[in-house]
């Protein structure tokens, strides 16, 4: 049913509390009316995001070519910050942290995506969202606490080592799982795994259940259904989840600081160190590289999988 809005001038006082609207509104009423400020008020969040998010992100590129001064920077054009980055060990650290993040993505996918598929395929529809809600709780507990909590678990005398030694599986504590690249990967997985479940489930919601029935009727095995049907159909969600984990693994400094030990670095930590050293152009250059990496990944993903499909359930 579509009800056509009546002409404002024809609205009369109603018993139901409707107001009498003057036939000819004053200039002030027009200004604050529905076609005036009220209409534009809805654009306030857009203006806010453009001013405080999009513009600073774009200006990052400009600041990255400014010249460094003792405590700040001044307008100019120099690629010194980029040279500084590419001709130092920082680029190697950046590449290593990319590899660690890629591992975190693979592990999160292997652990998290089957859960999204299981919930969509096997859990009754009315209960699906409730099951996914279970993952909200760990996701909403401070990442700081979750990462920090891994120390008493993974440490030399932590729960894991104590348990393995008590059951006789190992003789000496495993030290490679904390203050090492592996520790960083574990931290990334613990931090971001729920996001893979959410994004995967959102993508799976767009896959109709009869698709699975067709696969079953045709006798396709579980592996083939997963590889040839589920993954291609859920690709936008998988990709969005993967980019989220990859970029945050690369850029969140907290994880290598707490779990990585002395040598562990990622892009976020290099940016932090550059800011502490008051080398703002270098910090902006690394941020620019991160932003370009992110945009390139999202562009490729959109071209390949059409990421707008993730929003279909909402639309």
């Amino acid at each position, binding site marked *: 049913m579509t009800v056509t809005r009546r002409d404002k001038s024809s609205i009369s006082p109603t018993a139901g509390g409707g*107001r009498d609207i003057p036939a000819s509104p004053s200039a002030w009423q027009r200004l604050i009316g529905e076609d005036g400020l009220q209409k534009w008020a809805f654009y*306030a969040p857009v203006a*806010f*995001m453009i001013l405080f998010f999009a513009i600073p992100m774009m200006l990052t590129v400009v600041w990255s070519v400014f010249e460094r001064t003792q405590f700040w920077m001044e307008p100019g054009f120099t690629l010194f910050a980029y040279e500084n980055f590419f001709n130092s060990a920082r680029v190697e650290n950046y590449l290593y942290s990319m590899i660690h993040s890629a591992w975190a993505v693979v592990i999160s996918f292997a652990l998290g995506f089957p859960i999204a598929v299981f919930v969509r395929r096997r859990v009754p529809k009315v209960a699906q*969202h409730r099951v996914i809600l279970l993952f*909200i709780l760990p996701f*909403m507990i401070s990442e700081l*606490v979750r990462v920090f909590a891994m120390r008493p678990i993974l440490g030399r005398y932590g729960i894991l080592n104590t348990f393995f030694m008590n059951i006789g599986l190992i003789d000496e504590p495993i030290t490679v799982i904390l203050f090492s690249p592996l520790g960083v990967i574990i931290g990334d997985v613990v931090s971001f795994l729920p996001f893979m479940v959410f994004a995967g489930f959102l993508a799976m919601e767009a896959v109709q259940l009869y698709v699975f029935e067709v696969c079953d009727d045709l006798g396709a095995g579980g592996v083939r259904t997963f590889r040839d049907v589920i993954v291609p159909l859920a690709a936008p969600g998988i990709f969005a989840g993967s980019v989220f984990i990859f970029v*945050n693994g690369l850029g*969140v400094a907290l994880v290598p600081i707490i779990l990585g030990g002395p040598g562990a670095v990622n892009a976020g930590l290099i940016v932090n160190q550059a800011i502490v050293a008051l080398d703002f152009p270098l910090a902006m250059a690394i941020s620019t590289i991160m932003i370009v990496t992110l945009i390139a990944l999202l562009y490729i993903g959109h071209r390949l999988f059409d990421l707008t499909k993730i929003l279909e359930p909402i639309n």
Partner: protein
Amino acid sequence: MRDDYSSELGHKLKWAYLLSIVFALLAPVFYVIYISFNEYGFGARIYEFTTDWYRVVLGDTMLVASLEWTIYLAVGAVATTIPMGLMSAKLYKRTRHKVGFVTLMLSPLFVPADILASSLLVFFKHLSGAFEWLGGALGQGWLQTWFELGFLTALIGQIIYTLPYAFVVILITMSRYHPQQTEAARGCGANAWQAFWQVEFPQIKAGVFSACAFVVILSFNEATRTALLKGGFDTFSNVLVSQMLNVGMSEESYAMGGIMSIVSMTVIGSLIIYTLIRSERLERVARAKAEPLMSG
């Protein structure tokens, strides 16, 4: 077609796997809480229950001050983010440029905290310089302190961080609302505000309150953006980070981690329980309404 539940064992194993992942994600947090109640802290052979470490934390004036700042920021974030989330969701419904709009609103989710914070830091330092010059040129002293690092800049950082979550939560709830109801209300003479407040809001309020809870928790837990944008005050998370890095993991650190976890779990746990009870009630009502039709 193969029966979904033909392999009962397989089905149970899948459930066991799902629950074990949830457990694995939550267990470390529960362990931190467990240690925080031990008189002798982490690694001790003896466990003696105590709340002393919480008393130490809550008796420390610096920590209480940081807790107060955290609450002010959370209140500020809710007061600004929720109306903005509502307006964004309503605008999304009617805009023709959905892809561009949603890209702008959700992009902050994909930009790591340290990168966003450092860009905003440099942006605010430039903006502050510009306002200082402007205030001086116009002879308006009050303009000069705008965008100096402080509460406002930290709040802006938090709004950018929390707005995408509020937007998505409200949008999902709004997707179940039929806009014809608003048109009907307008047709009956209601103005835009009355149509929203009396017709639409009662149906989306669960989503709005959920968004409030999310924003409170995200704001309470946020550390990185606030650390760079806050200026002269500290939040609870900032103090915890600096303690962990400078002092190491003391008993107070565990108690602080415990406070953060308990607050998060209480708020989100209550929300989940409320959502479950509400959806159960709605289902019961729907079933009761459908029953006469089905039996007829």
